[in-house]
């Protein structure tokens, strides 16, 4: 499918721009709700969970969509609708549909459907299980729903890497366009695991905060707060976007990914593989640490992650530079959206680069000797650009299983 010449050589990589953003998060329906409320220091966590309480499926979905889609796919469909409209794609697709990809990731998939159908199986027997059980719970259901609703006919799939799934989706979409397999890709992540199974299992792992407070990098942090939601970005080849006069919100310039090969749930303490992922992303973007103006951290509010991420940032960026780059965690405002986190945080990062204002790590107050960087305490602050260039941000995602993903975004010219 690639435009390789007769010798198999690929043409040069295409630049990839962001032209649309969409999100449904505990801060509300819409990417602007996510960004502006986070920047105002607001938090969408109540009673120990980040639920999308403002999301009312019956207001935005058809009966058929509601019946056929698990909540994670419903969230994805709404976020995708916003992103495509933001790109000006809502009336008609700007490219051959076969040249538009769709990658919507999830860490867990349709767990609400599994739980409900398991009740049916136990109480009424297998013959009464819904024929929609498997197609609603399957991990690719959100990608399939977005593809079907909007007629996207290029490569379409989900990726699963737990809490880095959304970031992997963006990396895969970036490569798909860079290597000429698509002209545009709708990428994102979705998750809806605020269920008895989800809470019970994460609780047993002692991963969840017993106080129900998400305060990444703070010495008092005691676990993550589970959230739900979806984030979607429209990526387009820069040349194609320019040709159609698209509004450009930013650019995805770098992607790096490695694995710890260490432990099922704990990050490898030295952060060597996480460091490498960040270095790979910076190399991919063709920049050095001095050009990074902001880090959107994975920052989960667990003891282990936040210390290991801090160590990795120091190693990858160099201590001098690491101390001077503002770092904040979206999870302080929405909790941990698992497979949606990387995508939602990418949406927030692009908005940060556009607004040139860095939202704070909400609730951060007490420094931890193991987390001694600048986590933007208190309130939002202006983003200071190195050398007057469009600002550059790094966004990290790490995950159970040992996944490390780093993405580099560049803001649009003001």
């Amino acid at each position, binding site marked *: 499918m690639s435009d390789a010449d007769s010798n198999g050589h690929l043409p040069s990589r295409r630049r990839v721009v962001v032209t649309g953003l969409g999100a449904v998060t505990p801060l509300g329906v819409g990417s602007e709700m996510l960004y502006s409320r986070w920047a105002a220091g607001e938090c969408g966590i109540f009673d120990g969970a980040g639920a999308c309480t403002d999301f009312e499926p019956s207001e935005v979905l058809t009966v058929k969509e509601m019946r056929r889609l698990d909540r994670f796919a419903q969230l994805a469909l709404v976020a995708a609708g916003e992103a495509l409209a933001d790109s000006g794609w809502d009336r008609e697709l700007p490219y051959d549909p076969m040249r538009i990809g769709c990658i919507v990731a999830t860490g867990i998939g349709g767990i609400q459907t599994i739980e409900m159908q398991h009740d049916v199986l136990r109480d009424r027997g297998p013959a*009464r299980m819904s*024929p929609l059980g498997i197609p609603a719970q399957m991990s690719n259901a959100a990608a399939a729903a977005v593809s079907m609703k909007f007629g996207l006919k290029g490569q379409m799939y989900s990726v699963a890497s737990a809490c880095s799934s959304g970031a992997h989706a963006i990396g895969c979409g970036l490569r798909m366009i860079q290597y000429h397999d698509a002209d545009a890709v709708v990428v994102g992540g979705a998750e809806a695991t605020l269920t008895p199974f989800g809470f019970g299992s994460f609780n047993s792992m002692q991963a969840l905060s017993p106080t129900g407070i998400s305060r990444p990098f703070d010495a008092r942090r005691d676990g993550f707060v589970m959230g739900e939601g979806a984030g979607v970005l429209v990526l387009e080849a820069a040349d194609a976007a320019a040709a159609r006069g698209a509004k450009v919100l930013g650019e995805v310039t770098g992607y790096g990914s490695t694995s710890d090969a260490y432990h099922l749930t704990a990050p490898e303490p030295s952060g060597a593989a996480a460091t490498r992922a960040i270095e790979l992303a910076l190399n991919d973007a063709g920049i050095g640490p001095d050009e990074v103006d902001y880090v959107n951290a994975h920052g989960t509010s667990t003891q282990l992650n936040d210390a290991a991420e801090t160590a990795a940032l120091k190693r990858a960026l160099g201590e001098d530079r690491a101390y001077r780059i503002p770092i904040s965690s979206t999870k302080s405002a929405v909790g941990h959206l698992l497979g949606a986190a990387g995508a939602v945080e990418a949406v927030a990062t692009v908005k940060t680069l556009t607004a040139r204002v860095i939202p704070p790590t909400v609730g951060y107050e007490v420094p931890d000797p193991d987390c001694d960087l600048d986590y933007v305490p208190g309130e939002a602050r202006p983003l200071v650009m190195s050398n007057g260039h469009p600002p550059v941000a790094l966004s990290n995602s790490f995950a159970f299983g040992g996944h490390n993903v780093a993405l580099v975004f560049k803001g649009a010219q003001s």
Partner: protein
Amino acid sequence: MATVTAEQVEARVVETLASFGPDADQISRESTFEELDIDSLDLVELAQVVEDDYGVVLKGEDMKELKTVGDAIDLIVSRAE
């Protein structure tokens, strides 16, 4: 099951199909499943309701022949007799 009337079956089928998406007032005996956007997955769910309510078992091969709402009602009524 001998007391089941065609009217009762029609009301139940329309109610069930309406819960799948189409408006109830859109649904008549003449409506095709295609125009109602009712597909094979929906028909399996309809068959589960019919079996629960009337003890009528509809298999996949039965469903394949159904084109209209009236076809389904007639089949269910005939099997329930």
